[in-house]
């Protein structure tokens, strides 16, 4: 959902304005995806196995065997948007369609839309983010999860990128 260009310097963006194809290299020492926090609810919710999927909008879906899935943004995205100050969450019971805007993340005066990576029904929201929005930065694939949904169509999950594919797509862009 977010692009690396958020980190570009202003002079770089001026050049970019005139040449949209210019890409700046983006160096990551650690994994581009971020550390999957095994202590957090997105892992401990069930005994697994967990199907971890990714979208082009830099969101992840951690699907459990009971056909529910946790949704959040990747480390890559949370680094790109900067310090998160507020997370606008949907409501429990909301029906969401793949691609819908289901909330937003505010960081440094910017409101960034969150999209539904899959269709389903919101069965839980991460209330912790109301008090501690920066969890999205510090532990995106863990305590910084955003919503849990009841998956409507398991086929949609299969069409999303797996970990290797997502990591590969990030490396290609870099």
């Amino acid at each position, binding site marked *: 959902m977010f692009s690396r*260009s958020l980190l570009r310097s202003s002079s770089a963006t*001026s050049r970019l304005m005139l040449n949209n194809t210019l890409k700046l290299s983006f160096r990551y020492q650690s994994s581009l995806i971020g550390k999957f926090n095994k202590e957090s609810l997105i892992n401990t919710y069930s005994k697994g196995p967990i199907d971890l999927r990714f979208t082009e909008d830099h969101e992840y879906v951690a699907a459990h065997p009971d056909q529910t899935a946790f949704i959040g943004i990747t480390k890559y995205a949370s680094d790109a948007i900067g310090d998160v100050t*507020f997370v606008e969450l949907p409501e429990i019971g909301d029906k969401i369609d793949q691609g819908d*805007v289901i909330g937003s993340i505010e960081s440094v005066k910017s409101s960034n*839309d969150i999209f539904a990576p899959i269709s389903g029904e919101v069965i839980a929201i991460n209330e912790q983010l109301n008090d501690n929005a920066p969890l999205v930065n510090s532990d995106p694939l863990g305590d910084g999860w955003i919503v849990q949904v009841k998956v409507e169509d398991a086929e949609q999950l299969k069409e999303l990128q797996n970990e290797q594919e997502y990591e590969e797509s990030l490396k290609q862009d870099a």
Partner: protein
Amino acid sequence: MLRINTLSSVIRRYSIRSIPFTKEDLKGDDKYKDLNDHYSDLFTSEETQVSSKSKENSLSDDIAEINAELNELYGVESPIEVQNVEQREQKPQEFPIKEQDIHHDIQQDIQQDTQPIPTLKKESLLDKIKSNTPKIFISKSNNPFLNLAMEDYIFQNTPVTNPFKAQRLIFYTNTPCVVIGKSQNPWRETNLPYLNSVGIPVLRRNSGGGTVVHDLGNVNYSFINSKESFSRTFFGSVIVKAVNKRYGFEKLAQNERGDIIMALDKKKISGSAFKVTRGKSYHHGTMLLNSDLANLKQALNKRQRTGIMEFECRSVDSVPSPVDNLGLPNHDFIEVVSKAFQKMYETPVEIVEVDEFHNEEILKIAENLKDWKWRFGSTGSFKLKLNHQESGTLIEFHVEKGILKDFKTNKESDFEFLREQLTRGLELKFKSDEFVRFIKGDLYEWIGNQIDGTH
């Protein structure tokens, strides 16, 4: 105080004249009735009555009156602002900011600079918005609801292609209003009792960030680009360079946060906010040119609340900064920045005057923008603690989605009727005209005055 009120009432009278969209225009069109009534309500009541009364007397009487007041107060003669107003009044062809002229000037300049602008006569506003070339849109309205709706409409309908070619630059100027960020609490960020007393509306925008004040001396710009090219600093640097070139020296600078500031004393003259969605983004901002800074300060004044009023909420905080005016006339600023924008692209950049505010989609967005549920009701849960020192009353209101859900107090007996309403499940908006009447004794008035003064 006298001065502020009088000058701002003059500004309001101007603004009424420049609203192109009146109830009369759409008479008989029931579809727009509510919205129109709203706009009428918004700008009528006291102000319009004053306006119609003074129509025949012309504005010069008012100005004479203001001058007399100012003489009396400050011992000065015809301060500059008023002189300008007077000149404009005497030469009506130069007033108000004539968008046609701006359009004409810029088009001429551009024609001189580059190739002629293609004339696309039968295109609708939507056709122009959907076209895949950079464009400039200049609003002919001064209505904040319509202008914010227009901006959203343009943003929503701007095409996303790879590479992105539909950069947009929008300009609009609003009558006095306060605009809070998407995730803010209007009760905390603005001086609601003051705003209600002078009839200045509060709007909530879709971008992040803090609270800003608009008036006719402020030009809002909005730069739409691809998501990939999103930058918090780029367009500010375009403005700084263009304005500095115009002055011939370093009048403006950008601080480390990307804000546009006066180079000399670092005072902020522009507030920015951003929106990023699939494929596109915008950076919009205010530009204080000749704004009423006393009004701005008052609108954002949190009323020396320490010890009396305390908020407990998680919404986004505004960061107050010392501000100043650039001093450039509105149309000069629009021209300077438009030229800079135009030079960024190889293709000719058409300038579109937006006057199609009867557009159903724009009206629908405007309708949502004025809905209390969006402006106030979408505020995250908060607690407001009030301390009436004279009577030793402490009260803590719990508000969810703008609705009064619960309260705690050390003087339960004064609040028994209010408790009864809540127990009955009555849905009370957190507006003093909705619930302070249920509070016993003299306290109701004080509480109402602290919250918003609408009772």
